[in-house]
């Protein structure tokens, strides 16, 4: 027994030494440059990166050979992120990797990723849309080069709306009109009242007025909640965290936040217009009349639900008088290994990052994957003159929002916790408990702010 313990102790020592000695090994990296991406190799996103890298290698035969590795993500990024974190611990990171926009601040704060602005070609940074620059910038330095933007709009079921009386139909704005959250809730309430009495076949499968996708939050994909509904705070001049990314008290639980969230809560006032446990693909399958929809719905509906006549209007503003940016945006971006100190190699790395995010790449990504372009010069590529009117309308709205109202999510090193707590302890709680009074909502945000504040303490040191 004694010998076995000795043997195990020796093994522990040997493994520890092996782990230490493997740190910082440069190996044969000089001749190649490695990229890690969360996109699966057989997904259109994975394929578009593979094509882009292939083109780079072809046009730069004398440079380092660029290799791309696909580490498929699950849910909110787990799998890929776990592998990335393991690589950080082992100091074995790739030269370039992808990160979701809101994660950039935490990695930059830790020194895991490096700034790119000193190495960029003249004017390259200014070619990105403002929301993408804001998403990738931490303390004034650009770290993340977004390759795809996103957007959220409101969609409605045309068949259901056609069955409504004219006075309710008149509440729907056109694709070029702004509208408010109150108007959105009023419309939903009228539809719900009508639907429950109607025998029109358009309402045969009707369950609730609005699809909110809060089911994602119930399933642990918290970011969907924050991404979809932080704009209700923005549109009321509030936010979940201050500009410094570290202060929540007095911001997250401000009276403007509570006011906006109380209006959001009207969706869940009995009889509820929405639920946190809606059916899978509720809007797609004709079970809701309205939907808060991500941009990916457009291709999904056109390709997989050809019978659904969907119309698209802008994301509603919380306050009519608000004139700042307020619509959801942001997506994954390329970042570089911050441990790399060799200036020549950093230049090569940033050159590849430029190749992967330049105007041409943004156009290619839109055509191959429907990714919203991150480059100002590529937005015009969004085609709003196809044979499909639903496609044209949806993309007109999204295009308008990208050019005029998209806002980056908060830049904070504690964003994952911030986002999770907002989605779980406020948005979902309101929906599940059908809380509508502002006093209880104030308590929810106060409790959440206290928790977040405690968690952000470590970043203030």
């Amino acid at each position, binding site marked *: 027994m004694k010998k*076995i313990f000795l*043997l*195990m102790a020796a*093994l*522990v020592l040997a*493994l520890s030494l092996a782990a230490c000695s493997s740190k910082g090994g440069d190996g044969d990296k000089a001749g190649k440059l490695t990229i890690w991406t969360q996109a699966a190799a057989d997904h259109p996103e994975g394929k578009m990166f593979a094509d882009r890298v292939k083109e780079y290698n072809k046009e730069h035969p004398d440079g380092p050979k660029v290799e791309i590795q696909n580490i498929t993500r699950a849910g909110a990024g*787990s799998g890929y*992120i*776990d592998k990335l*974190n393991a690589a*950080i*611990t082992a100091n074995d990171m790739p030269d370039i990797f992808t990160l979701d926009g809101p994660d950039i601040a*935490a*990695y930059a*704060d*830790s*020194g*895991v990723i490096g700034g790119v602005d000193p190495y960029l070609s003249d004017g390259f940074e200014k070619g990105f849309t403002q929301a993408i620059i804001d998403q990738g910038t931490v303390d004034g330095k650009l770290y993340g080069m977004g390759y795809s933007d996103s957007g959220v709009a409101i969609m409605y079921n045309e068949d259901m709306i056609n069955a409504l009386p004219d006075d309710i139909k008149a509440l729907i704005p056109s694709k070029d009109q702004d509208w408010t959250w109150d108007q959105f809730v009023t419309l939903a309430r009228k539809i719900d009242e009508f639907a429950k009495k109607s025998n029109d076949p358009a309402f045969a499968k009707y*369950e*609730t007025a609005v699809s909110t996708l809060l089911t994602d*939050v*119930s*399933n*642990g994909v*918290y970011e969907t909640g924050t991404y979809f509904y932080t704009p209700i705070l923005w549109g009321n001049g509030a936010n979940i965290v201050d500009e410094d990314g570290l202060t929540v008290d007095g911001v997250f639980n401000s009276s403007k936040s509570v006011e906006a969230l109380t209006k959001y809560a009207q969706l869940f006032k009995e009889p509820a217009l929405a*639920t*946190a*446990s*809606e*059916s*899978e693909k509720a809007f797609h399958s004709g*079970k809701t009349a309205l939907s808060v929809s991500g941009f990916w719905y457009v291709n999904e509906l056109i390709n997989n639900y050809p019978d659904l006549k969907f119309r698209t209007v802008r994301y509603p503003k919380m306050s009519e008088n608000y004139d700042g940016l307020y619509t959801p945006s942001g997506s994954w971006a390329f970042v570089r290994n911050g441990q790399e100190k060799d200036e020549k190699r950093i230049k090569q790395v940033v050159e590849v990052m430029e190749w992967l995010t330049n105007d041409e790449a943004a156009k290619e990504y839109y055509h191959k994957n429907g990714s919203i372009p991150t480059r100002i010069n590529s937005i015009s590529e969004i085609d709003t003159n196809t044979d499909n009117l639903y496609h044209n309308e949806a993309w007109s709205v999204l295009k308008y929002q990208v050019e005029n109202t998209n806002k980056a999510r908060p830049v904070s090193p504690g964003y*994952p*916790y911030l986002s*999770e707590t907002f989605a*779980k302890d406020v948005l*979902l*709680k309101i929906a*599940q*408990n059908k809380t509508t009074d502002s006093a209880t909502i104030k308590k929810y945000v106060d409790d959440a702010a206290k928790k977040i504040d405690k*968690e952000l303490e*470590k970043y203030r040191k």
Partner: protein
Amino acid sequence: MKKLKLSRFVQVRNTTEHYRQSNHYKKGEVAAAYGFLIPALVLATLFIVLPIILAFTYGFTDYYLLKPDAKQFTGMENFKRMLTDDVLRQSFLNTIKFVVLVVPLQLAMALGLALIVNKKFKGVGLFRTAYFSPAVLSLVVISILWTVMLNPTSGLINEMLANIGISKQPFLTSSSQAMYTIVVISAWSGCGYQMMIFLAGLKNIDNQIYEAAEIDGANGLQKFLYITIPSLKPITMFLVITTTIQAFKLIVQPMVMTGGGPDYSTMTILQYIYEYGFRHRNVGYASAITLVFTVFLIIVSIGIKRLFGEEKAA
């Protein structure tokens, strides 16, 4: 026959004693022994010993996943934080609640099913396979299927309840129902495996004992209480210990079905550790919780073993 077996046992024992006392293993034999041991030792060291040592050391630091080289010793800071962490307290209580409910329910279901499939009737093999099948399914698959079936708006279960006049239930979306729902699903998915073990135990009970009891006028319930239950006691002990330990490690079902909600009503200790260690990247704090939970599990295991040990001795 018995004499022969006994003499062989004595012979083997004497040989072992002889080797032990004189230490006369040949060098080749010793090398072979260690050769066989090493693969298991390497794996145990890598996946059990080393993580425990690391969790122990990290528990006393502020290890942040993105700054692995900047960790600093923080003494008892993480452990002090645990005392004031409301969600951790709730997660611990949720875990205890789950264990207390699922272990008796699952074992009772397993025993009930084993009694059914122990009967001789046509098609019993089919029932045995059907009852056992959830045990071979992935827990993730089971959790996703049940989530769909339990959807309050469009789920199959609520449709069935509506047919018998029961109003729609919120199930996983209600903080008062979610944990009970997970308990029932977990018991259902796990009882097939235990059913097979109970079944093996039932097959081992000598039929003559039942026949003797029948001659003495025992009815079905008496036979079950005074013959079946006592005969299954060693197997039941084994199952209580393994099911309890397994239940304390609950993570997949709440993670997939509720994400720990609503309102943290299904958050378990293991999920909380995962969330803190990986999602919030606070490895130091997650390690401290792991450490305390490991000690707690060791105490529980020893407690259960002693409880059954004492009963056995009595």
